[in-house]
């Protein structure tokens, strides 16, 4: 950078500034971030920006999207077999799909990280047992866990969210635990310890900044899995039930229309795919930017 200053550097960029600079230089990640902000805004304001009531049966059945010749601007993405506006349904559905998966990820992340940190900072019998046990628990398919939960608690999106959260927790524990353990073996931690740092200080100031990239990757992964599982279970009819506008449930509702009205199937699917790709772009961008100084 060109400046008039003859001194080398007046201001040493903080870790966050370096991160932000590196992130901004990655155009794909920036594109992902703007899209993600859009999705978050839609999720927060869905009730107010939806043009129609998502469950109102307008009487205009199976209107194609507006770009088709028979389409109308009134129903921008067309209507389904009950005459409900698809755009409104997809907009409000973001809360049940995207919002719900964020909730699940945050809760599972908090619980999993705290257990992972506790196990990672200690060593011995507890952590080695934990390590092997988690490997096995992680191998139970998430859908099977969801089926068990449905058997006990009945159908419904909340029960499904519990099951998905429970499937995500071991992943968090495992990765945080491994990351902390690997980090604790390094020499700079020993140096800090010799300086008299206690465990809490070590964790917050030495270990934590260095495992941020792993946490970012894990959160991205968990969010993706949560969206996939919530929509899949909605599609199978185990999660969100029929009139719900959860994206998977919309898809499951309109499977029989696939030949007659393909847009009722393709559009909700595109919404899911768009959200997941955007999350992955941002996650990958964050990971790269965090690693920029290291790699």
């Amino acid at each position: 950078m060109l400046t008039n200053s003859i001194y080398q550097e007046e201001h040493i960029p903080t870790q966050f500034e370096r991160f932000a600079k590196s992130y901004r230089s990655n155009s794909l990640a920036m594109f992902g971030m703007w899209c993600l902000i859009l999705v978050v805004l839609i999720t927060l304001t869905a009730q107010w920006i939806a043009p129609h009531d998502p469950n109102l049966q307008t009487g205009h059945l199976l209107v194609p999207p507006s770009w088709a010749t028979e389409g109308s601007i009134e129903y921008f993405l067309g209507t389904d077999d009950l005459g409900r506006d698809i755009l409104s349904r997809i907009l409000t559905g973001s809360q049940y799909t995207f919002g719900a998966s964020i909730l699940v990820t945050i809760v599972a992340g908090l619980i999993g990280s705290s257990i992972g940190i506790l196990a990672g900072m200690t060593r011995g019998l507890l952590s080695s047992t934990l390590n092997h046990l988690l490997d096995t628990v992680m191998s139970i398919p998430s859908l099977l866990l969801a089926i068990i939960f449905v058997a006990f608690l009945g159908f419904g999106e909340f029960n499904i969210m519990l099951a998905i959260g429970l499937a995500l927790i071991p992943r968090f524990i495992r990765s945080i635990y491994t990351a902390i353990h690997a980090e604790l073996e390094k020499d700079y931690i020993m140096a800090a310890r010799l300086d008299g740092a206690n465990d809490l200080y070590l964790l917050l100031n030495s270990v934590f900044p260095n495992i941020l990239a792993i946490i970012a990757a894990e959160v991205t992964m968990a969010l993706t899995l949560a969206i996939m599982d919530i929509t899949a279970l909605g599609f199978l009819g185990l999660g969100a039930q029929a009139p719900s506008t959860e994206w998977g449930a919309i898809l499951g509702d309109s499977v029989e229309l696939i030949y007659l009205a393909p847009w009722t199937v393709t559009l909700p699917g595109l919404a899911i795919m768009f959200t997941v790709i955007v999350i992955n772009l941002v996650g990958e961008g964050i990971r790269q930017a965090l690693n920029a100084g290291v790699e």
Partner: protein
Amino acid sequence: MFRYTIRRFNLFAITLLMLTFVGFSILRLDAESPWAHLSYLQGWSHYVQELWNLNFGLNKQGYPIIDDIVVVFPATLELVFISFMLALFIGIPFGTIAGMRQGKMIDTIISFISMSGYSAPLFWVALLLIMFFSLDLELLPVSGRYDLLYEIKHVTGFAIIDAFLSDHHYKAEALQSVLEHLVLPCLVLALAPTTQIVQIMRASVAEVMTQNYIRAARIKGLSKREIITEHVFRNALPPIFPTLGVQLSSMITFAIITESIFNWPGIGRWLLNALANQDYASIQAGVMVVASFVLSANILSDLLGTLSNPLVRKEWYVNQ
């Protein structure tokens, strides 16, 4: 290796035992079943004995559940096995190419395709494929395992083998029908593991490529093919074995979805039906069978990974 194996089997046994508690609790959900009236521990020990004899109980219609499982479980296994092979055969070469040429054009393309394949919801991809290949082009069948015109006797439960073993005059046609019905479900089911294997393989190969022995091999003047087959594969493959077992467990999730879309008469669809009918004995049996299958696959892949990778093996004993 012996102590490691013993440890793993211990873990397997403990987890299975924990699972039996889940299975038994599901069984007790049905208030009318005799299990609900026994005291918990006594009932549980009785239940484990019955499981040991492969007696899963009777379903709601009063037939032994084991007869159902023998029919539906091989159907799922067939689907999963073929898709897994497909995923390996596509994933390993492409992952290797991407890893060898990290940061280059072809790596970006492969990575991007694998990310979009991973991001697309499976059931949606399945519906799009049905829409295109079955409804528009009318090339492939929409659902089922084979045309009901053909009568394929149940021998092994694997439709391909059964069709091959049948001695009707329409054997070739039946086999063709079975294969046609396999194409779409297998493609759909293979999608997610393929993208995963590409990513794992890419990371593993990229890691190996930075090692000094690869540079030494280059300096020695080995051809690219020799470097790949003798140095890269030999070092990049063993670390991915344990992760394959984890892949298998997520494949079971996907298999349940695929079966429900393609009406594939496998254990996933059967389990979903049992759930809709609140047939708790069947749910219990399905959960136990699928979970023990996944667990054993996991332990096996772990053992195989350790067996083929001396580095991990030595490290484990050093840490003891």
